[in-house]
């Protein structure tokens, strides 16, 4: 690794270089500020009694016995909490008719999923709070649990929500998006081949390593409240907590200190956050709650959870004509922040990188007695990418074509950009040919196909499979107008303020909220490049609404694509302000000044120069500022993105499947991603690796399992199989660079790419290995048992 160590920073722009991260020193020395580290005087620990039943009436509930347990200060059920029992909000009512049932933080009369909160105990000692839960009296009367999505929609099905004003169905909404082309049936009528598949995109648990935690600290009579939370969205949380609790927004300060991963799982306003704030306010004492992993599995939202009926129509020589998508999307028991919208984040992406004449999308959201679903790395786009990339392979098999040839035949060529897709988006740039050519080269596609042939011919019990995924995704959420059109209540802009302090040090205040992405380093690189100063002279301030009041936080691969624009603009504005002051100091016109290397110089007079830091001091002392120029050297920018950006890439997997046991071993994984301009390629690569691991895990290891009574069977990390180092190979990654034209930095976004692209590559590879045996699909996760059973079934069918 030493060969990529940075050169001296003074000689070269920091942009595009693999600078080692500023964050790492504290993280590597255990000098980290996790929310759970916080201890405050008088602090109470909150423990939560959760429902062990998926669906039940609460027939008796009495928290008073808990009050006589040692160290207990208070205990609440919904009854005692009364008006303080805040409603958990959903900010994306996707249709006007959507069923949006009440979601009280503490369940009222009825529980609707295992893990639903029914009561809380507050004690001065954490262990005592846990112990006292056992003293609470509670009886349930079990109701049938709604688990299966199709059964949930049948007439007469048990209702998850049956309040007097509820519409009497488990359907949450139906959303229809007609494509921009001809009607699908018209396209289908012209087709020689129509391939239909039902794919199950299983539920997943985000399983970030730092469990959630929240500390709410009231400041007494002043009504002020400081909330530390392990969240991805301190700014959005502030608005929502104000709305939910009625606390004035200007007296709420939210701090997301060091946050240990999120992947969408911390893009949420949770019951526990609301309860901590409300109870802290009520009792006038700080309240802390830290999630146990057991709670995390049932109470942190899950991701995915779709039944996908996919149909694709083509001519016999492999030209795509149209695609039809029918989804059932599992909402779980309640709607959280963007539960209903999550499947719709994928609706524009089912056509992937391909041209076709017709597209039809339909999605039905369904309530079940399971943990609510919401965003998980990729949110909607992994599901759509899985569907299109899987069905392309099935179509290729049907047409007896090489799956890569089929893709090439139908993808958007690089000279076609910008390209208006059948789903109604305009892809700005891309070069699928270049990324694919590079990937094929690195992968030894021909060599592996030859090996596959040999193994097939010799009847080797270990078969080789090759999987392709040529994906694109939409990143950089999001143009506020688009969000508005989709009925999402907030905007998608991002903010940055940059100030140079009198000593020449810089504070860069961002509205993004990193939890592993390395913003402190990458944002410094962008600003240092423009300001011409050392990366280490910049401190990135984030994730604290007291210090960084404006922002839209971090999710949806948006931080760089949107936030980066604000940084660039703010830095440029700061230089412009400084230029005026420098011109005054150097007694020249602003047009005579050029700015480079951290100093203004008078053109043609190398002797006359003014370093930016000197300008900053002048702006501070304000002894001799030009007329009309305000003191201090600071500038800000709030940028609403003009459009999405579209990273893409070609991912290739080679797997070995032991047909005797069904065990799959991932042998080689090659990917070439085009994420546009890279600020820090080391961080880009790391993001890809992490995404790959999660996407591969969906394909091979992870999947939420419930029994018919709604008990979560995968309720610990011993049963929910997050892969370890020993379960994954090293990856071969590379990039091509086609700058985005929707933002001035040319960046696209990389946080989700790996997770979106890799899942279908793996399943395609497994199916490819087994296709001669008559296999044409394997449900995820492709556990050994499932693969083995699929082989047995295929054998029986062909026998």
């Amino acid at each position, binding site marked *: 690794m030493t060969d990529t160590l940075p050169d001296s920073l003074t000689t070269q722009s920091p942009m595009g270089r693999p600078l080692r991260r500023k964050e790492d020193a504290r993280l*590597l020395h255990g*000098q980290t500020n*996790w929310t*759970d580290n916080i201890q405050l005087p008088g602090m109470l620990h909150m423990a939560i009694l959760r429902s062990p039943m998926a669906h039940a009436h609460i027939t008796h509930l009495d928290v008073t016995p808990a009050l006589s347990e040692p160290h207990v200060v208070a205990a609440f059920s919904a009854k005692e909490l009364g008006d303080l029992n805040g409603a958990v909000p959903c900010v994306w009512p996707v249709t006007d008719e959507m069923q949006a049932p009440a979601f009280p933080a503490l369940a009222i009369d009825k529980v609707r999923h295992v893990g639903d909160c029914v009561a809380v105990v507050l004690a001065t000692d954490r262990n005592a709070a846990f112990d006292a839960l056992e003293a609470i009296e509670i009886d349930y009367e079990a109701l049938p649990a709604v688990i299966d999505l199709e059964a949930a929609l049948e007439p007469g099905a048990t209702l998850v929500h049956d309040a007097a004003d509820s519409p009497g169905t488990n359907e949450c909404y139906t959303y229809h998006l007609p494509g921009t082309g001809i009607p699908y049936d018209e396209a289908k009528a012209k087709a020689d081949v129509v391939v239909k598949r039902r794919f199950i995109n299983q539920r997943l648990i985000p399983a970030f390593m730092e*469990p959630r935690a929240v500390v709410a600290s009231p400041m007494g009579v002043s009504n002020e409240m400081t909330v530390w939370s392990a969240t991805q969205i301190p700014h959005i949380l502030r608005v929502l907590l104000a709305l939910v609790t009625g606390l004035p927004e200007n007296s709420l300060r939210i701090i997301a200190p060091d946050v240990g991963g999120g992947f969408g799982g911390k893009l949420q306003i949770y019951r526990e956050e609301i309860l901590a704030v409300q109870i802290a306010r009520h009792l006038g004492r700080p309240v802390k709650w830290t999630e146990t992993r057991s709670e995390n599995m049932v109470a942190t939202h899950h991701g995915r959870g779709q039944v996908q009926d996919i149909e694709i129509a083509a001519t016999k020589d492999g030209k795509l004509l149209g695609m039809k998508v029918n989804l059932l999307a599992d909402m779980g028991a309640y709607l959280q922040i963007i539960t209903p919208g999550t499947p719709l984040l994928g609706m524009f992406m089912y056509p992937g990188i391909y041209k076709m004449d017709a597209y039809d999308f339909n999605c039905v959201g369904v309530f079940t007695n399971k943990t609510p679903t919401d965003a998980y790395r990729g949110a909607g786009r992994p599901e759509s990418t899985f569907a299109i990339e899987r069905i392309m392979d099935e179509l290729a098999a049907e047409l007896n074509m090489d799956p890569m040839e089929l893709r090439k035949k139908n993808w958007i060529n690089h000279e076609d950009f910008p390209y208006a897709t059948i789903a109604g988006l305009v892809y700005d740039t891309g070069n699928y040919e270049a990324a694919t050519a590079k990937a094929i080269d690195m992968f030894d596609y021909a060599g592996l196909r030859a090996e596959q042939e040999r193994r097939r011919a010799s009847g080797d019990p270990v078969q080789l499979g090759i999987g392709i995924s040529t994906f694109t995704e939409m990143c950089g959420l999001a143009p506020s107008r688009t969000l508005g059109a989709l009925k999402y209540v907030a905007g998608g802009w991002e903010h940055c303020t940059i100030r140079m302090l009198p000593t020449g040090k810089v504070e860069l205040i961002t509205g993004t909220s990193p939890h592993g992405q390395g913003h402190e380093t990458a944002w410094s690189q962008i600003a240092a490049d423009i300001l011409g100063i050392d990366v280490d002279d910049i401190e990135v301030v984030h994730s604290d609404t007291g210090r960084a009041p404006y922002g839209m936080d971090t999710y949806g691969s948006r931080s760089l694509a949107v936030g980066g624009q604000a940084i660039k603009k703010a830095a440029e504005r700061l230089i412009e302000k400084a230029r005026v002051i420098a011109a005054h100091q150097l007694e020249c016109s602003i047009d005579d000044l050029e700015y480079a290397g951290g100093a203004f110089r008078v053109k043609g007079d190398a002797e006359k120069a003014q370093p930016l830091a000197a300008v900053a001091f002048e702006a501070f002392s304000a002894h001799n500022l030009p007329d009309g120029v305000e003191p201090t050297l600071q500038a800000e920018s709030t940028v609403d993105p003009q459009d999405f950006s579209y990273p893409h890439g070609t991912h290739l997997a080679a797997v070995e499947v032991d047909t005797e046991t069904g065990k799959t071993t991932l042998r080689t994984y090659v990917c070439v991603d085009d994420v546009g301009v890279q600020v820090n390629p080391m961080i880009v690569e790391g993001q890809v690796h992490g995404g790959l*691991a999660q996407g591969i895990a969906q394909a091979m290891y992870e999947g939420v399992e419930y029994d018919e009574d709604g008990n979560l069977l995968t309720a610990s990390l011993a049963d929910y199989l997050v892969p*370890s180092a020993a379960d994954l190979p090293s990856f071969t990654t590379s990039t091509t660079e086609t700058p985005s034209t929707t933002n001035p930095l040319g960046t696209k976004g990389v946080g989700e790419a790996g997770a979106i692209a890799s899942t279908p590559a793996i399943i395609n590879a497994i199916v490819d290995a087994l296709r001669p045996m008559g296999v044409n699909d394997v449900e995820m996760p492709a556990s050994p048992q499932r693969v083995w059973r699929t082989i047995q079934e295929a054998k029986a069918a062909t026998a």
Partner: protein
Amino acid sequence: MSHIPISVTVDGTTYDSEVEPRTLLVHWLREDIGRVGTVVGCDTSSCGACTVLLDGQSVKSCSVLAVQADGQSITTIQGLAEGEDNWHPVQTAFKECHGLQCGYCTPGMVLATVDLLGENPTPTEAEIREGLEGNLCRCTGYHNIVKSVQYASDLMSGGAR
């Protein structure tokens, strides 16, 4: 249930303390003596986030009672470096090779690596992956963690690999 006196050396400092028998070592470290560098990630001893060295051997400090550590010596992530500028080679390697993102698994991962390299100074990639099988990371996909361990091995054995 009576408290029990214990005396445990943590990162070179001896702490005398009285604990409830049920107190987990990791909770004692974090809450009783304020060594919050070591963290908790699960209830089933599956994740390895809490890994420390107990008398020089890696253990999951959520699966040890504080009373059991009485008279023993513990090294946490906070005691690995000898001073601010004198990082342990494993720390250096994780930074150089971008072996961490959010950093939550990092304390455990680093200590598991120290243990691994103590037993096997020049592990193969397969040995590294198996040696770290008890430590989950959700961010890095392990690719750069493996690289970090290899680089640490280079640093510690003077490039002998």
